[in-house]
């Protein structure tokens, strides 16, 4: 089935090119901070069909962000913002997790995206 999720990895300043858009058209940003061995917050919420941008940062080392249900993955590098655009096309609870091995506790580093209908 053709996935209708819009996915784009954007460089930290790339949104500047969209500055002419009205504020009301800007997708909501969801900020998530990563560190061994957790995401903060580890539960975030979006609405079905409403575009959001996940803004990911790391406090210590390279972590990963992988959410297979939406075909998303990215590295989270300290000192950089990793931005992932997403328009959820299905409701429910979806797990994201670190896929860059980061130590004893790596397997527990995960969170949940709740998409409300």
């Amino acid at each position, binding site marked *: 089935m053709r996935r209708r999720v819009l996915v784009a990895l954007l460089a930290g300043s790339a949104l500047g090119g969209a500055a002419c858009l009205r504020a009301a058209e800007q997708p909501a940003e969801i900020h998530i901070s990563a560190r061994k061995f957790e995401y903060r917050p580890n539960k975030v919420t979006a609405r079905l069909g409403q575009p959001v941008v996940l803004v990911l940062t790391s406090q210590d080392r390279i972590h990963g962000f992988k959410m297979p249900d939406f075909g998303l993955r990215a*590295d989270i590098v300290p000192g950089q913002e990793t931005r992932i655009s997403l328009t959820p096309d299905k409701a429910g609870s979806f797990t994201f997790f670190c*896929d860059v*091995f980061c*130590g*004893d506790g790596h*397997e527990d580093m995960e969170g949940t995206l709740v998409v409300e209908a």
Partner: protein
Amino acid sequence: MQHADRRDFLKLAGLAGVTFTAGLFPGWPPAAQAATDFHFVQFSDTHWGYKGPANPDAEHTLEKAVATVNGLGRQPDFIVFTGDLTHTTEDAKERRARMKRFREIVSALAVKDVRFMPGEHDAALDKGEAYQEFFGATHYTFDHKGVHFIVLDNVSDPAARLGDEQLAWLAADLKQRKADDRIVVLTHRPLFDLQPQWDWTTADGAKAIDLLMPYGNVVVLYGHIHQENHHMTGHIAHHAAKSLIFPLPAPGSQPKRTPLPYDAAMPGLGTRDITMADKVTLVELPVTKG
């Protein structure tokens, strides 16, 4: 994946849970192999250094498994360890201490031809530096009685990639093989997407499978998931082995991949004896209480 094949495999596995036999070398005529039958033993996921409630007996489990294999009536030709020899630690000195102690314990194996490969617990935090000091190369090949063994490293890159360089090395090695050669791939993580939601994958494993696909007699033996699992990608069979530390849940059977509760009888732990003939026979060797 061929679903009919997979059902057959699962049915076979369910017959005993101990012995698993399948025609895994369909292109290999029985008359050609009678003189070259052999068997070897697979250890996996020993996680030496782990301390926790999932295995209060962790200090002794590996020694018990060594004793079990030493007690086999017919000793294997060789032994392989498919990764996670040690449990991870961020302390580089402690990492080496664990590898040293692990090597001491397995030196008690009666069979001295032992092949190692890393798991992410051994190699991902330092890109295999300590592992290579103790055990050598992380990917290599060897041959035994007409079977070509290929050891792949999908863990030294913490993002679980084989990487283009290793894939090119694999392609070059396979170019030297004939289409009906018997090939056994040994690796730590599943090369296919077993359970992506639990990260039970190799990021670029599909590229390795594509390279192997032209060869008619290929078997992949791996670890990482701490349980038996049997899966087909086309004609290539993939078999996961039990661990020697704690069992993990069946793929997708519960929300989180947390270890199963400890059972003093340790039914979910063990090693595996693998007989290579026209068929490959897997016999699970439980850990016996010492």
